[in-house]
C-alpha cells in the first residue's frame, strides 16, 4: 500500500511538473517570437518560479487539480481492469491522459470559456498536455506492474 501510494504521488508530481513545463514553454516560445531575449538562464528561472507559484500562489493550486483528476481517473481505470484484461501500463496511461484533458476542457466551462491554463488554449497545447498525462499514467501503471513482477 505504501509503495502504491508512493507511485501515485510520484505520478501526480511528474504530471504537475510536465504541465508546468508546457505552460512555461508555451509562454516563453511566444515571447521569443516577438524578439524578447529568452536565454537558458531565464527559461530555468521562470520554470523554477512557475513550479512554486503555480502550486502555491495561483488561484487554484495545480497539484491539487492534478491529484483530484488522477484519483478519479485511476479509480475508474482500476474498476475497468477488473473486467477487461489489458496492460496496466496502457490502462493507467489512458487514465492519466484523460484526466489532464478533462482538466483542460472542463476548467473553461467553469470560467465563462476562459482558459486558466494558457498553455492549453490551442489544439497543439491540449495535445501536448494530454500526452504528458499519458506519460505520468504510464509511469504509474508500469511501476505497479514492476512491483507485482518482483
Amino acid at each position, binding site marked *: 500500500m505504501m509503495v502504491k501510494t508512493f507511485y501515485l504521488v510520484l505520478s501526480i508530481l511528474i504530471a504537475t511538473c510536465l504541465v*508546468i513545463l508546457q*505552460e*512555461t514553454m508555451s*509562454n516563453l516560445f*511566444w*515571447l521569443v517570437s*516577438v524578439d*524578447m531575449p529568452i536565454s537558458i538562464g*531565464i527559461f530555468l*528561472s*521562470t520554470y523554477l*518560479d*512557475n513550479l512554486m*507559484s*503555480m*502550486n*502555491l*500562489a*495561483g*488561484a*487554484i493550486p*495545480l497539484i491539487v487539480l492534478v491529484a483530484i483528476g488522477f484519483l478519479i481517473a485511476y479509480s475508474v481505470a482500476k474498476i475497468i481492469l477488473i473486467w477487461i484484461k489489458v496492460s496496466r501500463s496502457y490502462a493507467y496511461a489512458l487514465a492519466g491522459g484523460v484526466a489532464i484533458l478533462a482538466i483542460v476542457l472542463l476548467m473553461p466551462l467553469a470560467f*465563462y*470559456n*476562459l*482558459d*486558466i*491554463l*494558457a498553455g492549453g*488554449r490551442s489544439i497543439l497545447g491540449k495535445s501536448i498536455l494530454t500526452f504528458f498525462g499519458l506519460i505520468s499514467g504510464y509511469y504509474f501503471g508500469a511501476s505497479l506492474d514492476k512491483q507485482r513482477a518482483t
Partner: protein
Amino acid sequence: MINKINIILLSLFTSWFANANSTDYKYLTLAENLSHPWGIAVIDKDNILFTELSGQLRIIENGVLNPEPIKGIPEVLFAGQGGLSGIILDPEYDSNNTIYLSFSSPDEGKKTNTLEVIRAKLSSGSIEQVETIFKASPSRRTAAHYGAKMAFLDDGTLLITSGDGFNYRESAQYLDNHYGKIIRINSDGSIPKDNPFLENKDARPEIWSYGHRNLQGIVVVDGIVYENEHGPMGGDELNIAEPSKNYGWPAITYGKDYSGATISPFTEKEGMEQPIKYWVPSIAPSGMTYYTGTLFPEWTNSLFISALVPGDVRRLEVSGNIVSEEEILFNDLGRIRDVASSPDGSIILAIDGQNGKLIRVTSR
C-alpha cells in the same frame, strides 16, 4: 511628568490637526436595487444616465430614478463580464441629445460575440436613430475583457477601449485585430484621416494604440489621455496613452497569470511604454474621472479611479507623468464600478452587484 504632559498635548494636537485636514463628506443614495450598474454619464447635477450590465439604460431625472428603463436598447450578451457597459454623452449633447453606448453584442447563433458601440438620440423614454459606429473584429468565444470605455479627444474624435478578450492576449501585440487596443474613430464611425496606422496595410485603420489588456477607465485632461487597465494577478496600470505607442501587454507586465504562471519575466523593453503607476497586488481599477470641482477644494485637479478589490476609490495627484500622491477613499461601500464628477462638485459612484447602488458623495 512634564515630558508626559508634553507627549499627551502633542498627540492631542496631532490628532486635532489630522481631523482638521481630513475631508468631511457624506453619502446620499440616488438609486438602489440596481442590476450591476456599470457606466455613468452625468447630464447635469440632477440628471444622470447610467447603464446596468444586464442590459438596461436608466435615468435619474430631477434627482429621482425613473422606474422605467429607457427603451430601444439593442440585444446585449449579459454573461461573464459582458453586457451593456460604457456610456458617454456627445460633446454637443445639450443641442443634439446624442449618446454613445458600448456593449457585448452576440453574433448570430450566439456562439461568439464582440464589443459594439452605437450612437443614438435620447428622446423621452427611449433612444432613437440607433447606428452602429464600431464593432470589434474578430469576434470572440469568451465573455471577458471587453474594455468598453469611451472618451472624446479635443478634436471631437472618439476613443474606445477594446480589451484583449482574455484568451487572445497575444493578439494585443499585433495590429491586424482589435484585441487590446485603443480605437479612434469619428463620431459617425468613419476613420480619422490622421490615425497612426493608416499607412500600414496589415493594420486595422481604427487602431490608435496597442499592447493593452483590459482597459476600464479613460479620461482626457488638457489633451493628455489617461487610461487604466486591469493587470492579471497584480500589474494593474495607469498609463498616459499616445497614438501609435505599444504598451507592452503581454510581452512585458508586472503581473502573473491567475494560474500563478509567469506570463513574461520582463517588465520593460525598448519601444514599449511604462505605466506611470502600477499596483501589485491588484486593485482591479474600473472607472476614472478627473475632478475639477470646488466642493472639495483639497481634491480639485485630482484623478479619481474606482476600484473593485477590495472596493474603494484611489485619488491620485498627477502632474504630467508623475503620480505624487495616492489617497484611498470611500472604502466602506463595496466594489465600486464607476466614478464620475458632477457639475455641482459632488462625486457619483456606481456600486457593483446584483443589488447595486448609485451614490452621491457630497459635503456634510
